[in-house]
């Protein structure tokens, strides 16, 4: 078994007066893809935001053996965690080139890495000098993931990457994310599209009303329709 990369223990997060996460527990291993599944409002996005320090949590989050609760978002990012929020987190006034330069932080992006990223997402080459606000939904999603990849990351948190995308773009995205895991980057994925999640993830955590209700291998839940129906309320043919 590969080394544990992320462990979340008894995570509680409040947004205003609302107790959103009421005890989330899961772990994931280095080099793998883990999916956070659950119905709308289960607390999946809040879990990602809590890991990034954007929604300050109580409880324990250990990344690579280090407790990261209480660190600033910037410090958490610098530990090697990239975040692709559902809203994509792009800067509409910046071009594709500027966005990637920004994401590279202090140093100029490595040319070979830029070539690798644009081989994952060829559309970005074409719109290199276009403002990100002018890209299509699929191109924005690609740029959002590319942004998280400019610097080598150990873990990227991806929130609903397929939302609103055409099936052909989703297929491109699956291929790109699969390539990514081969570069030893782990992915924590929040996804409503079960097919998409099942095609990528090996580990799965199911959330319900801000609590972990099940954790196990994706194969188990993908094969067991009764379990899937019980946990997620979905039937996938």
């Amino acid at each position, binding site marked *: 078994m590969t080394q544990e990369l992320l462990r979340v223990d008894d995570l509680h997060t409040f947004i205003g007066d609302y107790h959103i996460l009421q005890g989330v527990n899961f772990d994931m291993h280095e080099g793998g893809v883990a999916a956070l599944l659950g119905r709308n409002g289960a607390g999946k996005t809040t879990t990602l935001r809590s890991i*990034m320090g*954007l929604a300050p949590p109580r409880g324990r989050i250990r990344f690579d053996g280090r407790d990261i609760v209480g660190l*600033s*978002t*910037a410090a958490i*990012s*610098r530990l090697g965690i990239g*975040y692709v*929020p559902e809203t994509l*987190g*792009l*800067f*509409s*006034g*910046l*071009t594709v*080139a*500027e966005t*990637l*330069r*920004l*994401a*590279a*932080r*202090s140093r*100029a*992006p490595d*040319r070979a890495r*830029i*070539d690798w*990223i*644009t081989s994952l997402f060829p559309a*970005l*080459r074409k719109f*290199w*000098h*276009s*403002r990100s606000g*002018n890209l299509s939904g699929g191109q924005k999603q690609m740029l959002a993931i590319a*942004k998280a990849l400019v*610097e080598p990351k150990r873990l990227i948190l991806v929130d609903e990457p397929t939302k609103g995308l055409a099936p052909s773009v989703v297929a491109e995205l699956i291929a790109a994310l699969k390539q990514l895991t081969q570069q030893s980057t782990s992915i924590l994925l929040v996804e409503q599209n079960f097919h998409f999640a099942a095609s990528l993830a090996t580990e799965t955590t199911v959330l319900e009303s801000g609590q972990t209700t099940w954790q196990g291998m994706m194969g188990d839940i993908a094969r067991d329709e009764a379990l899937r129906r019980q946990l997620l309320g979905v039937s996938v043919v």
Partner: protein
Amino acid sequence: MKRLISYDLPANAWIAALVAAIVLILAVLPLTTPSIRSVNMAAKIIVFIPLAASFILLIGYTGIVSFAHTVFFGIGGYGLALGLLNSDASVSGMLTGLMLGVALSAVFGLIIALLSLRIRAIYFAMVTLVAALVTSQLASRLTWLTGGQDGVSFDIPDALSPGVRYWTVPFSDVPVTGKVLLYYALFAIAALSFLAMLRIVNSPFGRVLQAIRENEFRASALGYPTTWYKAVSSILAAVFATIAGGLYAAWLGYVGPGSTLSLNVLTDILLIIVIGGSGSLYGAILGAVVIIVSENYLQSLIELLIPVSIAKSPAGTLLSGDRWLLWLGVLYVVAIYLVPEGIVGMTRSGGRPGDRRAIPGPNHSR
């Protein structure tokens, strides 16, 4: 040339031509006309360009809406004045006073940035407005230091005074005095300040500032310590505004609450960036010209265009030259309605010429 302006060309050829024409006119004006009024106006434009540009750096690039900018302008003016008064009008005294002003402004700029972390949006704007008013009141009351409401008049180094005559320009017969030399010193320092700000906003640091303006959380999720960036931006804006304040005081040979710290100065800065646009530093050049030329010549223009018989009739009273401030207000409202992003903003296209230098592109196989 492109390198000089940090590869940040105005988005449109017309704007670029206009900016070039303005710079050229400002560069030759004191050698071609003996009109003191015109040269004074040009000097005010020269001072207000870096002042408004530093405000754009703060509000347009970092998203910190602070109305305390006049405080830095005032600190620069008073710093230079006190330096000259305490050194028998020596150049070293002038520079020492200005540098002390810059240091004080840097501290104040840091405080403003830290305040912006605790107090958000409109509340922060109101706090900074109060800070500006309190500073103005302080300057009016600390008579022993600032000369109170009357302000301070001072001598500038002899080499820069109007009484010293160097030579006469052959083609225009305009005498080149110390004052003309001072004009070019202002021009050079303002130009260097502007180019430095262009360099800052087009550097990786500037891109982070833009990212913070758009969404601070997203910038921090990329690993940027946004507090540090905001603090440095606020300090830089304060420093450039302070230098502009020193230039203005040097030109006037006077500093007082009315000339540097008043709400009129703040209004001028706001008008300049509303008319010129806050999305690009070039907005400061176009806005400063429109506003300051209007302030100086709108009355004459109205008097020229509207016959006296109409202006003096009861029906034409609004068209009288005395009502120029009203028409300046109308210009302001129309500009907000028609070109909310300012003159520079209205011509912006999807991409920017400067972008091509951001990072080397991928290996295209077109």
